[in-house]
């Protein structure tokens, strides 16, 4: 079981309030991702749940029981740190065994769980090495192995992939998702990378300056961003946000349209502008369009074979059913 509830939780460091009153409900078995820009309080929130920081006020419940004053080790949660935090002087085997040793689990059971975790994480050949002799991806797996053997109620990950190179990151992302499907244990995953959030999450929590901006499934956030912040944060490349005349004509303060919801043409369309940088990904091409009179830059996605040169005039037509309208307060209209 791993159901976690935050009620009115706040956190201040001295005078500065990092987390204003916040409520959140995480269901058992859910893969929840906290996403937001750097410094928005994601790690702090995770550390509050872990018990590594004391909350300033409010209540944390784990499986219904008040865990606010329970020390970290007793909360039944396992954490994977950004720096992996492996014990450098212990072999991989001893690293993985450490939490079990502290819990006084008998040697045979320890051995069984280590073998099982090592097999699941492809670490069997490395059990007698030191962390210093492993690659980044392997260290990451050891850190996960050390978390798994505790059989925790929930896993907490703090930007676990940010120290890995791009290719490895994609691989580990899949492995962690795979692990979640297999264990069906609650996982809370912190990242500033919205791609990780979109690809892994059952539920995304978008944070800004300690506030929850929106909670929902990846597609909910993509289709119905609650405000301009979420609209700009979720999706890649970013949603175009247009203000002024064009927005007013649509009865909105800000008009949002995703690059993939704009059709392009060389001859006719609702909007036009000059092509700046073109990013060719093969399957798609992204054009950054200037001098549109709408916003500084409008980004559009076109199929890979469409070709415009730098400085060409491009015509763009937004799909009207995909337009997002936001009021002056930034909130979604309709």
């Amino acid at each position, binding site marked *: 079981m791993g159901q976690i509830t935050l009620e009115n939780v706040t956190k201040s460091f001295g005078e500065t309030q990092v987390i204003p009153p916040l409520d959140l409900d995480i269901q058992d078995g859910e893969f929840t991702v906290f996403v937001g820009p750097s410094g928005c309080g994601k790690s702090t929130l995770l550390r509050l749940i872990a018990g590594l920081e004391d909350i300033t006020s409010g209540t944390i419940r784990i499986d219904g029981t008040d865990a606010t004053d329970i020390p970290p080790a007793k909360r039944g*949660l396992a954490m994977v740190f950004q720096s992996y*935090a492996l*014990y450098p002087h212990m072999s991989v085997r001893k690293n993985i065994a450490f939490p079990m040793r502290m819990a006084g689990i008998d040697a045979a059971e320890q051995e069984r769980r280590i073998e099982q975790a090592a097999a699941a994480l492809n670490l069997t050949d490395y059990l007698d090495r030191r962390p210093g002799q492993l690659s980044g991806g392997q260290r990451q797996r050891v850190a996960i192995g050390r978390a798994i053997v505790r059989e925790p109620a929930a896993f907490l990950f703090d930007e676990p992939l940010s120290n890995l190179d791009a290719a490895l990151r994609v691989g580990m992302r899949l492995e962690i998702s795979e692990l979640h499907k297999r264990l069906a244990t609650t996982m809370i995953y912190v990242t500033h990378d919205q791609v990780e959030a979109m690809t892994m999450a059952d539920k995304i929590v978008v944070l800004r300056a300690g506030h929850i901006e929106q909670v929902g499934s990846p597609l909910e956030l993509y289709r119905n961003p609650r405000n301009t912040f979420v609209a700009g944060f979720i999706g890649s490349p970013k949603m175009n946000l247009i203000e002024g005349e064009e927005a007013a004509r649509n009865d909105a303060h800000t008009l949002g349209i995703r690059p993939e919801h704009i059709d392009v043409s060389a001859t006719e369309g609702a909007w036009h502008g000059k092509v700046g940088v073109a990013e060719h990904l093969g399957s798609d091409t992204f054009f950054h369009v200037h001098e549109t009179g709408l916003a500084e830059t409008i980004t559009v996605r076109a199929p890979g074979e469409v070709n415009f040169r730098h400085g060409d005039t491009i015509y763009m037509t937004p799909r009207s059913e995909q337009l997002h309208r936001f009021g002056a307060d930034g909130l979604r209209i309709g």
Partner: protein
Amino acid sequence: MATKASRSAARVMMAPAVVLLLGWMLVPLIMTLWFSFRTYLPLRGGDQGWTGFDNYVRFVTSSSFWPAISTTLVLLIGVLAITIICGVLLAILLDQPMWGQGAVRILVIAPFFVMPTVSALVWKNMFMDPTNGLLAHLWRFFGADSVSWLSDVPMLSLIMIVSWQWLPFATLILLTAIQSLDGEQMEAAEMDGASVLSRFFYIALPHLSRAITIVILIQTIFLLAIFAEIFVTTGGAFGTRTLSYLIFQRVLESQNIGLGSAGGVYAIILANIVAIFLMRIVGKNLD
């Protein structure tokens, strides 16, 4: 340092230092070896020629030799134990955020800047003096008889004085080591269910092992040669005669340079044995 040119340039530039250092070490070493094989009594006939291994045999068979060795080792081990145990604890304490941290750190390091002779004299006269010393006052305040530290418990007193001098060094090295301990490792251990003590023994202490090794090696080198502290406190009486003090007595008090030099060679051998032995023990941590 990869190309041939840069390597030979490096050699040329290092040569003066190497030659100077070699001369610095080799000349006294060779002179010691030379004198150790001769009968050389400056006040009783001067250099009287070769004696073979006589000096070596006499030095070892003298009744003061083995007691001097054991005194040396007791002093060494006592001071190492105290400085490392207290050094680790002090380093952990100083690593905690507290008010006036900078001033406290300077105070802790201060004893290291006091010359050995001075600190030994301060201890002897201001702390350990049986009638006027601070410790005597303290003992009497609690109704106990004051202790004549330097004659009743001479080795303990000596170990205290020397430890007081070397504790700052150990603390300083261990403090820098503790500051480099990754906070997330400690938090990971906390989440893994390790108690404060387990975290100390399983995480902090292994992290410190390299620094402890360095402290042991450097202190050993200096502690084997301790002299001033003994000279100004007990003058080698009450069983505080270490090997280096014995050599001093042979050369200056007995005016026998040959015999003293033989003792010097034994001291070199002892220092090397101890150093190799210690490196073996702690070398396992240095990977």
